[in-house]
């Protein structure tokens, strides 16, 4: 009665409550944010709001694009609240994949069975990736559902591109957590690494937004790689691949160490 991918299925199933919770959270946030767009846009409140905010804050939040429906979705969800949510979920799942399981002592028992380290690492990473992709899909479906009623004017293909960039950023943070878990087996380091990668990308991008002089910082921010070319209106940009590429690099390093080190010491 051997079935395929036992560890992948176990990780998915063990985390279904969390996945359900995050999905509900994304649905709720979009249901709160998107419907107010049409009323804000129609009576010029956006211009007033942006004019009343300090320009540094507007640049940081990316609210300069807020006047179009697509820009609004990007600035409020993909670039802000949604990003915070997927990053937290990603770091949590990434930490759970190796480090948390190792610190609680459960990894030892799993590895004592007929699985290889590489198989465990790959299957659990795949489970995290699938969960993140699911959150991206939930966001797409929700935006499409509210697209007409809220007068957003978002196009389908660019929306998928933006969601791809969004999931990529989540995966990058998750990969940092998984990789550091693979290298150290320590929960706090794993959590810290994922959080640091997420915060780094956002902060460097926000600094790069401030003045022309700091524009070059965008080259070093995964956030800028993902969203710099405005995928929610312009569609897929090759730089989004960079986000996935760096995530893959993190995972590779984590795997190389994980396959040779001592577990559970």
């Amino acid at each position, binding site marked *: *009665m*051997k*079935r395929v991918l*036992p*560890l992948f299925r*176990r990780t998915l*199933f*063990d985390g279904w409550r969390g996945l359900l919770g995050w999905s509900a959270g994304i649905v709720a946030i979009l249901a709160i944010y998107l419907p107010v767009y049409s009323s804000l846009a129609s009576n010029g409140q956006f211009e007033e709001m942006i004019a009343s905010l300090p320009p540094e804050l507007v640049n940081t939040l990316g609210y300069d694009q807020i006047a179009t429906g697509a820009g609004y979705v990007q600035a409020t969800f993909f670039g802000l609240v949604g990003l915070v949510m997927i990053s937290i979920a990603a770091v949590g799942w990434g930490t759970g994949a190796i480090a948390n399981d190792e610190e*609680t*002592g*459960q990894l*030892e*028992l*799993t*590895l*004592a*069975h*007929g*699985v*290889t380290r590489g*198989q465990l690492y790959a299957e659990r990473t795949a489970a995290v990736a699938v969960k993140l992709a699911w959150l991206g899909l939930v966001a797409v479906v929700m935006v499409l559902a509210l697209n007409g009623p809220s007068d957003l004017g978002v196009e389908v293909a660019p929306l998928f591109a933006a969601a791809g960039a969004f999931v990529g950023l989540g995966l990058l943070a998750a990969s940092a957590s998984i990789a550091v878990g693979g290298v150290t087996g320590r929960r706090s380091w794993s959590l810290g690494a994922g959080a640091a990668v997420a915060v780094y990308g956002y902060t460097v991008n926000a600094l790069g937004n401030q003045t022309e002089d700091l524009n070059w910082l965008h080259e070093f921010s995964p956030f800028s790689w993902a969203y710099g070319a405005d995928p929610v209106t312009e569609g897929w940009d090759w730089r989004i691949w960079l986000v996935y590429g760096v995530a893959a690099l993190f995972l590779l390093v984590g795997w190389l160490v994980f396959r*040779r080190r*001592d*577990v*559970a*010491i």
Partner: protein
Amino acid sequence: MTEPTAAVSTRGLTKRYGSTPALHGIDLDIPRGLVFGVIGPNGAGKTTTMRLLLDIIRPTAGEVRVLGKAPRAGSAALRRRIGYLPGELHLASRVRGRELLAHYAEISGPVRRGAAEDLADRLDLDLSRPARSLSKGNKQKLGLIQAFMHEPELLVLDEPTSGLDPLVQQEFHGMLRDAKAAGQTVFLSSHVLSEVQQTADQVAILREGRIVKQATVAELRETALRRVRVVVEESQVPRARAVLARVPGLEELTTRLDREGAVALMAVLNSHVDAFVKAVATLDVIDVTIEEPDLEEAVLGFYGEDEVR
């Protein structure tokens, strides 16, 4: 020296954690079909040895063979032939015992239909409860079931009876006997000698990362210290002292007034029972006692005074 059929064989097995040594070159041979017990105080290296067998940690130096294969090279295929119970079992999963066992069955050797349920009945465990809500003893039962259910060639059990009540311990001993009868090899650890004494054919005593003694339980008993007591008339004491002093392996000779006119000579005897009996036969004795050897004491002797808790 290493017979090809040995279930476990190590040569100079060494493990250091950074600069902290855990095992100093262990040579161990566990023949197939035996119950082999390793005893030692906490931190002696029992768990380290077991983890090395399962490739959870890697040796710093030396050789290991498990069922004829190196753990690293044997990988998943080798581990399917082993059942392992970790010393510190953590089961935090929300899923029910039955589902958790089904998961472990998927990633271990083939499990006969109904095997997990049979073991659960035997240990009196309710498989419909979530794993993490189980008491320590019941989690331990779940751990034992996942180790036994695929009827592996080798069972590696780290402190298997910890948390089990005496009745369940008896049942576990029955499981060990059945495993042995089925030709399975068992490698178990304990810090309680009585447990190993009841179940194991052979014993290794581990202390500070070294095997200080490897013997059968019978051999251990032979070398164990016995308390002896000889009662003679008061006038005979000097002669008795002289005779006993010549008995090899007799130590800690003390005397005490036993009753009016009679004195008890007490000592600790290590192994030379025959010489002792013959020496005593030359005396006019009122009473002689040779106590059943205390293995616990024998083992504590190997641990060293400072380890006695």
